[in-house]
């Protein structure tokens, strides 16, 4: 499906992803996508340690001594902690799969291009909102981690990391989750961008740990249209991009079993997400990225900061 959704006037206002990918700059792609969906910055209801002072509170052991107001102590002999308005109220981690399977594409762009563009779009969107955005790319292992920040140049650093070509031979979905569990004690948002064409064993318990911490998790499964249709016309030899394994097959004979196994896997993934309260969206690379962003915003606004706790032991 290459056509984008039509506008109310009958004209298509969404951009074909293949056309969008011709823009070399990832930042430009993100700017274009975000252009029509930006809602403006909102003020944060949370407090942090920043420039704008809000109130004092009494010191309790364990607080950082850097935030003690020594002038109040000198004047009133009380330990008071100075509190400031925190500009950032969301710490979002973009978890992007850069394994070789993401390098597949049959409609003029690869899944990796699509995922990188979507990640850049989300990062730009959140950056405009004043949120801190971090990035973790992974394949067989965690490849790169950029902690969430909101400062000048950070977005460009993210873009640079996203532009790397996927070269990991296999996909290990557990590695990034485990790594982020150890790195991010503070709750935030986790946006998982992957094709999830990997064993799901053990994923549920780790995701449950995320959810238990309070992270809001959204999983975008990015697929190629041919992966969904398996519409090869002639007998061919398929090469596994990750393992390099070759397999000669007659597509007519293999299509049925493939589609059954593929849908079974996706269904399993989707149920896993439902059980954990993880938002799950399946994106096909011929769909306009604006729709993906819209779905992200819809999902976020719908779920708010509600944390659904689900017992990890019930995971399949």
């Amino acid at each position, binding site marked *: 499906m290459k056509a984008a959704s039509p506008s109310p006037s009958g004209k298509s206002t969404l951009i074909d992803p293949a056309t969008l990918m011709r823009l070399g700059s990832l930042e430009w792609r993100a700017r274009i996508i975000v252009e029509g969906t930006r809602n403006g910055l909102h003020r944060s209801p949370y407090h942090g340690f920043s420039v704008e002072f809000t109130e004092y509170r009494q010191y309790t052991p364990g607080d950082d001594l850097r935030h003690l107001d020594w002038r109040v102590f000198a004047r009133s002999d009380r330990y008071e902690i100075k509190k400031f308005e925190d500009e950032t109220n969301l710490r979002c981690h973009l978890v992007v799969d850069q394994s070789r*399977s*993401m*390098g*597949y594409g049959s409609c003029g762009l690869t*899944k990796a291009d699509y995922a990188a563009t979507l990640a850049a779009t989300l990062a730009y969107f959140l950056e405009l909102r004043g949120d801190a955005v971090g990035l973790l790319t992974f394949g067989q292992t965690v490849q790169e981690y950029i902690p969430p920040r909101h400062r000048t140049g950070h977005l460009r650093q993210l873009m640079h990391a996203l532009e790397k070509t996927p070269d990991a031979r296999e996909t290990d979905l557990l590695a990034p989750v485990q790594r982020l569990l150890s790195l991010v004690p503070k709750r935030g948002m986790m946006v998982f961008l992957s*094709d999830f*064409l990997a064993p799901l064993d053990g994923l549920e318990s780790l995701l449950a740990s995320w959810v238990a911490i309070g992270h809001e998790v959204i999983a975008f499964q990015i697929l*190629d249209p041919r*992966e969904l249709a398996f*519409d*090869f*016309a*002639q*007998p*061919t*030899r*398929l*090469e*596994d*991009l*990750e*393992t390099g*394994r*070759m*397999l*000669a*097959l*007659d*597509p*007519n*004979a*293999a299509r049925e*079993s*493939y589609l059954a*196994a*593929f849908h079974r*896997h996706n269904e399993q993934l989707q149920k896993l997400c439902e059980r954990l309260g993880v938002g799950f969206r399946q994106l096909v690379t011929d769909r306009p990225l604006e729709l993906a962003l819209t779905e992200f915003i819809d999902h976020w606004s719908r779920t708010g900061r509600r944390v659904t706790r689900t017992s990890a032991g019930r995971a399949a």
Partner: protein
Amino acid sequence: MNFLAPWFLLGGLALGLPVVFHLIQRTTRDRTPFSSLRFVTVSPPRLTKRSRLEDLLLLLVRCLALLLLALGFARPFLPRSELLAGASGTQRLLILIDSSASMRRTGVWAEAVRRAESALSHTQTGDQVALYTFDRELKPILTFSEWMATASDQRLAIARSRLATLSPSWASTQLASCVERAAEIVAERDGEKSVPLQSRLLLISDQQEGSHADSLAGYEWPPGVSFEVVAIAAQSRNNAGLHWAPPAGLADIKPSDPVQVRVSNASESQRDRFQVGWSDPSSTGFKGNPVEVTVPPGQTRTVTLPVRPDPALQSVRLRGDDDAFDNEVFIPTPVSNHRSVAYFGTDPATDTHQPLFFLKSALPGTGPNAVEVHAYLPTSLIPTNDWAASSLLVVTDPLPDSLITPLRTRLDGGSTVLLSMKSVAISNTLAQLAGVPGVSLEEAAPPDFALLGEIDFQHPVFAPFTDPKFHDFTRIHFWKYRRLDAASLPKARVVARFDHGDPAILQLDLGRGRLIILTSSWAPVDSQWALSTKFVPWLLGILEPEAVVETTAAQLLVGDPWTFSPNTEPRTMRFPDGHTVPVPTGTTQFNGASTPGIYRLDGAGSSRVWAVNLDPSESRTTPIDSKEWARFGAPVGPSSPAAVAPPPLRASGAETEGQQKLWRWFLVATLLILGAESIVTGLRRLRQAQPTPSLA
């Protein structure tokens, strides 16, 4: 069909490659990357009968392309034997033998003949062979057409018999022009263009320096002609040549003057002392004392000989080297052509207004062609013997009857009588000489003057004025003349007329002699004829009508022609060996000087000699370097010493293959087949790329 590089046929083993490729391609046709094979079950494709048939076609096409490529690289060619369809000959061979004077050196000619026979013996039945010699010009001995017209079993015998009769000439060597002509002859195909014979020009020569081969450098050789040289080496290299440095003309030779000759020593000679002197005709020695001369190798010295001890000696000899062909040079002794003119008239020789004075002044009194004028009073007492030997008899006054008869006798014997009319009183004498009853004469006095208006320039009397630039006679005025009625002399031919139409000069042939009549006289009282520049040539034209020789050089080289005016009198040419050949009337050129020596042309009352000598360039006998042929751009064959044999088979095959270039056609066929294969494959891929509805 033969192959020049048959090992390339091993490339035919590559025919197995397309089979292997096809077998591989059946299972590995396309490689399509896919994200993950985790959900794909093994289901190998099944081949259809249709695809097998199409692959078989491509297999055959690719095998054929490889096969043609291998054949092309093997450089195939059709041997000449196949092309000749039974004829076993492979070459068109022209054997060119140098027969110049330098080939007279000891052993050179015999070796040349032996090499030529060897070349003939290596020819095959179907070969085309011609035999030519050359010195200063090309001479056919046995042409290609003669060879082909002869029965194949007699060709070699005829060629050998003609070869045996050959001998070197005395002429110089014009190698470049003769080789060029021979190359064109051997390149001709005589309507057999379909038979690609190998054209070979085999030169057998001593390759001497003086062969004038330099101009060969600018020659563009006919394509396909190979040039092979068989160098004949002389047994001895000690050669010196003798040459005469003649004066400009024969008239400048004086027997009393010393003679200068040049001695040139070959650059490779090992001797430098020689003797030069007048040769003794009766022996091989000298007449008188020879002059000792030292000439270093490669240099030339001029030697002044003493005055010839005997005027009859006409050759100078050199002694001291090994080869004698250029050791003698001929120096002619001028022939004295003293003649006398008998003048019958009454005027004294000292009277500057009378004809005798001008006659004596006009004719040369000294030199080899001196003319002596004897004047006689026309009386009956003149002894006949005094003037009987005169070349010309001039009559200006009436003669007594006693003189008429002897004059008429001389006329009948072939003498020339010039009758100039000082007055009408001579009419009786004219009538008696002409043998007519009477001649009508009357004194004519034109108002101003008369001119010669109508002249027969074809007549020998006016032959010196044949050129139109000498035609102007309008400045010669005749004040008085005698009007002669031409009808009274019916046999007379009018050579010139006055502008009034009256005859001025007539000729009457009497017996073997002739009577030339001038109706006026050259005395100033009658005309300006004696004062004009045309008077002397006119007189000489009457005196020596046949001996106007145009070639005046004292020395000619062997083969040089010389020219002279056409003769009406019988003449003979005497050759150096003493035999004489009559020169036909009307001959203007003589080309028969084939040997050095003294040639003598004897005519009526006059003789002329020429010395014919060897070309000095023939004495430059040092052989030129064999590399010079390549510098001249000649397509020199594989090896000069062994060139008598036909080229080896490999060289012949390479040349044949180079001419046929069959590999080009194999390559073109390969490209065409590969192009067709690409088109077929492309079409099939397009067909396969179209979606098949039944797959859904």
